[in-house]
């Protein structure tokens, strides 16, 4: 209050610094996005034709629903795997936590193509996974070319985005509360359900939204490990552009993805802070 306030002028001038980045993004990012969205309603003739085609075409609709379903499954599995892991991270000592953090960041460290190649090798016919299952008597488990194969690979790469916000929220929970609940007569499962789980919800919400959003847009992993017969939206967008140069159709599908993304973001913005914070740990666009 009484400390010397910054002089007015440099602040007034500072917003020009935003201009170059804004200009480049406008030309190379927002203009292209606007263009493809515009084309989705303006071509071949003006109207909602492309959108009606998406919603009216059983195949396209199934693709959208399959994508949502896959993203949901990936999100749920990632949460189930990540929650105990994050919980364990808050219990162990400093050095063990360092190791667990390093492990969870592994997917960032391994390049996208290297990782997908590795999953290709693991999941292929006669690969390590199939042989491992065969060894315990279950034969014919070939994940390559199935939604399951895509899911496994995507869960792995999504883990950091789930573990980090979870751990963040859990570190803020006072464990004394659990003891307090115990002393008030709550058995451990009750204490967990009524105290710990609700308190960790901000982390759950932020992790779930980030993973869900990112899972919707994956392209490379489904293209390599999935199959065209069970295509996801991203693949269909890619195919339409690559094989048919159908930008308006791709734009309509893209708009569907964008809308879902923005809706999830907006919902999250209401219940938690900005997503940017939890998404800045590292990016992965696969």
């Amino acid at each position: 209050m009484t400390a010397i306030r910054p002089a007015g002028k440099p602040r007034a001038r500072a917003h020009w610094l935003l201009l170059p980045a804004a200009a480049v993004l406008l030309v190379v990012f927002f203009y292209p996005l606007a263009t493809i969205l515009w084309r989705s309603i303006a071509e071949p003739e003006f109207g909602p034709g492309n959108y009606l085609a998406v919603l009216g075409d059983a195949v396209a609709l199934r693709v959208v629903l399959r994508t949502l379903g896959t993203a949901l499954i990936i999100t749920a599995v990632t949460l189930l795997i990540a929650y105990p892991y994050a919980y364990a991270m808050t219990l162990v000592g400093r050095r063990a936590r360092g190791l667990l953090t390093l492990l969870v960041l592994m997917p960032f460290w391994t390049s996208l193509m290297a990782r997908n190649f590795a999953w290709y090798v693991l999941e292929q016919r006669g690969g390590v996974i199939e042989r491992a299952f065969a060894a315990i008597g279950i034969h014919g488990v070939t994940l390559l070319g199935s939604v399951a194969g895509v899911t496994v690979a995507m869960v792995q790469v999504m883990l950091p985005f789930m573990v980090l916000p979870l751990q963040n929220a859990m570190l803020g929970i006072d464990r004394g509360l659990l003891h307090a609940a115990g002393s008030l007569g709550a058995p451990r499962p009750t204490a967990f359900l009524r105290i710990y789980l609700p308190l960790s919800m901000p982390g759950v919400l932020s992790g779930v939204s980030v993973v869900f959003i990112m899972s919707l847009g994956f392209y490379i992993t489904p293209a390599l490990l999935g199959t065209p017969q069970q295509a996801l939206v991203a693949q269909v967008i890619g195919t339409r552009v690559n094989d048919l140069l159908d930008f308006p159709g791709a734009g309509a599908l893209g708009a569907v993805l964008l809308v879902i993304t923005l809706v999830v973001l907006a919902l999250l913005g209401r219940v938690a802070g900005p997503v940017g914070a939890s998404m800045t740990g590292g990016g992965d666009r696969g």
Partner: protein
Amino acid sequence: MTEPMTGIATTQVTKAYPGSERPAVDDVSLHIADGEFMTFLGPSGSGKTTMLSMIAGFTPLSAGSITVDGREISRLKPHRRDLGVVFQQYALFPHLSVARNVAFGLTQRKRPKAEIDRRVGEVLEMVGLSGVRERFPRQLSGGQQQRVALARAVAYEPRALLLDEPLAALDKRLRDQLQREIAHMHRELGMTFLFVTHDQQEALTLSDRIAVFNEGRIEQLGTPAELYERPGTLFVAQFLGESNALRLRPGEVTIVRPERVTLHTGTESVAAGQQRRSATVTDVVYVGDHSRIWLRYADGARGCAVLGAGTTHEHRPGSEVVVAWHPEHEAVVPDAEGNPK
């Protein structure tokens, strides 16, 4: 009066921020003599910090002029004004060692290396930090950091040193200690010091003269004793410490400081020629070197008396007393209802 050509002079300085109803600083003219320790005292938002900021060159003036030794500086960039500034939050450069922080102003002035080394040694010696030359700011305590900041601001012998609430971030014990060190530095360097604070004790302890700021104007300017004993306004009287403020005549308030009153159990012991008023004791606080007796006068006004240690008294909350003082210890100020305390 000092020769007006030397020292810092401000003439009708005004700072008005667009959109605010009254100017942050309103038509302030002031002369700070060469070598003087001047303090700007006032509550937050009174304009004292804005005033310092304009002298330092961080805030442009809306009107008026500022001269240093007769040279107009109000349009110069901060780095051309040759002033030293100490900030509340130290503002040490975290990537530079203590020695390089202190040397910054000297290297900027392209002084020879040998001189820089010598001077850095001298000022660090002066603030008692010769042992930490190669440390980094983050390795120092708050008090040490502020000492480094002081050393850095005087190392290049600027025309004057401006201190913006330099002790506000420190705890009480450190604050007292640094107060003494700042007073010592002022004596040793003979430099003009301009000190900004909202702490009246700090101002009274350190300053040659104090300018009390209120609502963008200088309410009163004078030596600590003048301001304390002879406040010109109710605001100054109340801002500088406790007082017995009595409304004896309409439109006027009579101020008597707690140290200037005596308490009596009856009127017999009151010397002739003294003013007297009866009051009720509301609280007795023992502070070690003195006791504070809180009073309520018949008209509801509150007051206070200070009794030195060793004075035995039997005042208890609820007891009736006669408060007496010598008329020459009164200060009469215009009444201003609703002034901030």
